[in-house]
């Protein structure tokens, strides 16, 4: 087709979509909002750039720093390990998520909504809890090993891969597969079936028809989900910190070590730049995939009703459900069981009760006290303090992210351009550790306000994307109807539109709160002494092998971060 033809078709499509070319232009308010978002994302990276010069002024200093970091075997090992573990994790997440995507897209069955709702898990269950759950379940003394030893009369635990590369991949794969399931499942449901059916009537068998009629529409979405999972795994911090040492380390952990343990801010800054540059490539791939995947996500063509899972589909569903129960629900159940099990000594038997919670609340019983109960006179436990620290940072961080994201989303509403979409994706290339490190370069005094700022900035891109998607989905016709019925601009906005967009704002703020409350990176890197929010408490308890109490603290953390599950408009989370 000629370029003029291309342009005409694009223009016609924009017109069909009700988006005039003028409406797609950003305008001054939109440009300001986009500029602010970019500045907030770029500020920590710029600070790292500046710091990476290690005191030598100019570009030469920067190159020297980067050269030193890139020539270091540990950096290359970390980069190599990070790329491999993120790649393998994304593949595993695909392998687990795609069958689920097929089931939710094509079949109706009890628990389908629950399966789809799992997509919120990577966002509202902090990684530290997943680490804990997998240690309890897959660890050498974990529930699964104990079951297998008892069932098959084994002397040694058969599963010992957890603290290795594959252990890390397993955790990441199971933690992130719901993203694949949700993203691909939604798109699959919307891909018109008639293309596949047309292929069948033209002589293609099932597989060929799928490859011709469905797969081309799904591929960009699969790529998009894979890139997102890859990015999350590439940036994984706590999981690698716990499982990594025997298998390897990632750049994220190396940055933390350089900054916090080796007191080498310039080295940490150089590593940050390398990591961000690598992530940027993935983000650009993600953006391109999102653009192409958008077509599949549109509801076009004839949508056939989902069929009941019968025959082979039913067998497949049962196998998948058992697989998820054993490998996915098992660790979470282990976490729950351990939290309510009061153990007598390391690895000893136990009984059900609230003792772990009580110890966290009121302090542990004195050593030697064999009363079997809790010493109520013991000093106060760490739980309330940790809960207070979590709320004191997560609430203002969520509020800040929602306000900033909300204003930006409202200003950017109805605007659409390739540059804008790319620009809004760029913050995804900045990891939690880089964000914390960069902002700590700008504000060197460690304090809670800085943690609030960093957590708000970490949540901001997700809040903005979820709000923009939610606002785009709001039907503006009632607002226009109100105007024609005599309501002024403000009155119509308050009476009609505010009610439509309020759930989206509440969801976005709950989402931001979950991200902030579950964050361990910023408190670990820039937290002031004595500052111990819930994720750090869990991390400390895991580190000292106090698993039952760690689980109890984890349950409290899950209740706090699980707030987002009560949000009305959860679909916006997957924008």
């Amino acid at each position, binding site marked *: 087709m000629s370029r003029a033809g291309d342009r005409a078709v694009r223009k016609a499509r924009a017109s069909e979509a009700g988006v005039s070319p003028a409406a797609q232009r950003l305008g001054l308010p939109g440009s300001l909002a986009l500029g602010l978002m970019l500045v907030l994302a770029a500020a920590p990276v710029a600070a790292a750039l500046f710091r990476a010069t290690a005191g030598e002024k100019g570009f030469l200093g920067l190159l020297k720093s980067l050269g030193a970091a890139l020539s270091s075997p540990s950096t290359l090992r970390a980069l190599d390990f990070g790329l491999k573990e993120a790649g393998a994790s994304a593949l595993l997440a695909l392998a687990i998520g795609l069958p689920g995507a097929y089931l939710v897209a094509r079949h109706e069955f009890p628990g389908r909504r629950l399966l789809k709702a799992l997509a919120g898990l990577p966002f509202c269950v902090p990684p530290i809890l997943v680490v804990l759950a997998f240690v309890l379940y897959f660890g050498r003394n974990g529930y699964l090993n104990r079951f297998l030893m008892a069932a098959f009369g084994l002397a040694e635990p058969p599963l010992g891969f957890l603290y290795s590369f594959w252990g890390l991949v397993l955790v990441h794969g199971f933690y992130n597969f719901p993203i694949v399931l949700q993203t691909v499942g939604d798109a699959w449901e919307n891909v018109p079936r008639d293309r596949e059916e*047309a292929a069948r009537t033209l002589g293609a068998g099932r597989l060929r028809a799928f490859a011709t009629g469905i797969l081309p529409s799904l591929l960009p979405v699969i790529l998009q989900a894979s890139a997102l999972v890859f990015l999350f795994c590439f940036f994984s911090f706590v999981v690698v910190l716990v499982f990594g040492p025997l298998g390897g380390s990632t750049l994220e952990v190396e940055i933390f070590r350089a900054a916090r343990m080796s007191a080498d801010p310039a080295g940490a800054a150089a590593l940050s730049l390398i990591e961000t540059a690598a992530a940027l490539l993935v983000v650009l791939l993600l953006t391109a995939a999102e653009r192409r995947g958008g077509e599949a996500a549109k509801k076009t063509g004839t949508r056939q009703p989902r069929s009941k899972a019968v025959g082979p589909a039913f067998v497949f569903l049962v196998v998948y459900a058992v697989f998820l129960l054993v490998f996915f629900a098992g660790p979470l159940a282990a976490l729950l069981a351990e939290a309510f099990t009061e153990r007598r000594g390391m690895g000893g038997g136990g009984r059900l009760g609230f003792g772990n919670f009580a110890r966290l609340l009121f302090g542990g019983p004195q050593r030697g006290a064999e009363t079997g109960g809790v010493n109520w006179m013991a000093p106060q436990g760490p739980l309330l303090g940790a809960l207070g620290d979590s709320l004191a940072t997560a609430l203002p961080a969520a509020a800040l992210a929602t306000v900033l994201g909300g204003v930006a989303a409202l200003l950017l509403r109805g605007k659409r351009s390739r540059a804008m979409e790319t620009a809004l994706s760029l913050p995804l290339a900045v990891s939690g550790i880089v964000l914390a490190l960069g902002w700590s370069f700008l504000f060197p005094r460690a304090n809670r306000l800085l943690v609030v700022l960093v957590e708000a900035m970490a949540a901001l891109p997700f809040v903005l994307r979820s709000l923009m998607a939610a606002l785009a989905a709001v039907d503006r016709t009632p607002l226009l109807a109100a105007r024609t019925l005599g309501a002024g601009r403000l009155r119509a906005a308050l009476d009609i539109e505010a009610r439509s967009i309020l759930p989206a704002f509440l969801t976005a703020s709950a989402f931001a709160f979950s991200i902030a409350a579950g964050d361990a990176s910023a408190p670990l890197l820039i937290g002031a002494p004595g500052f111990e929010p819930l994720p750090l408490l869990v991390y400390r308890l895991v580190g000292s092998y106090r698993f039952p109490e760690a689980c109890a603290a984890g349950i409290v953390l899950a209740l706090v971060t699980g707030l987002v599950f009560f949000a009305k408009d959860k679909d916006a989370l997957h924008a």
Partner: protein
Amino acid sequence: MLEIRGLRFSRPGFSLDLDLELPEGAYGVLLGASGCGKSTALRLVAGLLEPEGGSVRLAGRELLGLAPERRRVGMVFQDYALFPQLSVRRNIEYGPRLRGAASEERRKLSQELGKAFRIEGLLERRPASLSGGEQQRVALARSVAARPELLLLDEPLSSLDAALRRALRGEIRERIRDAGLSALHVTHDLEEALAIADRLFIMDGGRVVEAGDPEAIYARPGSAFAARFLGRGPLIPVTRIIESGPRPLVLTPFGKLRASRGLPTDPAASETESCTSGASGTELPKGSLAEGRPANGSPTGGQCYLHFGAGEARALPGSSAASIAADADGVYNELSGVAGESYFLGTTRRVSLRPPAGGEPIELELGPEIRPSRGEALVLVLPIDSCILLR
């Protein structure tokens, strides 16, 4: 020949039970309202849905149990279902490629079909860059290229504007006829159906309620549903049969009217109360048409109507209509009523006529020169030959 016998399919709130015959090379049209099961019928024939029972035979070959790709039944979808990642040429060559046609043969075929369907200039373009009409032609060419024995078309014109629809419907029929194919075309557009069908099947509630030559069906619908769906004219409820026989006289809210024939013959009718079998003076049960909806075209039970074409009645000035009707006994009915709203429609005027004693009005099309005022008593002449009894 396509023979469909007792093809059954059901899902909550809907059931389909289909019988249909389409001669080889004929262009059949399934006409019905949305949700009556037209598209489901096509999908069952194509093998895209699994029926609960019945038989579908094409040229003597049983299709049920065969996978869609083995049926040699092509389908043109409502949204065309072109493969967006393939060029127009590769879309057309998709079927031939699957049956193992050599590259040269495929190219020749796509060139020929491109020419036949007037899309030869579009062969290297992607479907997304085509207009609706162009996409429609590509979808047809692609289906024809796969050499099916039967082509199914699921509302292929519904996405197009009215002018293009009118232009393309003739072209579709012509191309399909040129290709020597039988076709079953689904539409809810009456004009489209009448314009292109060799054989018309009117569907209601998952069943074919009337089948045959479109002109014959239009001239003499076999059921009140078909008459209503075809929009031919009024259905006046019959309250009593005064005389039965080949020219029954019935009592209606508009007075005594004579019909040119009784109810269409139906074996089941003899077992149930019917207008024709009832003795003189039989009171007919009141009931809606829906209650007595016929199965498989069998008008059994339910409300009986006197039906005629909307434009058959004539209004004459003064009292001449009454005198004509009275003088020409056996030729005309006299239809008396009270005029309601009237609308000028260009060549005709649509007039609402209420029974003299009150009741549901009927709508008639009279000459544009007749301008009855609201509430004016009208006496019309209605040829008895145009009046039939229907259920």
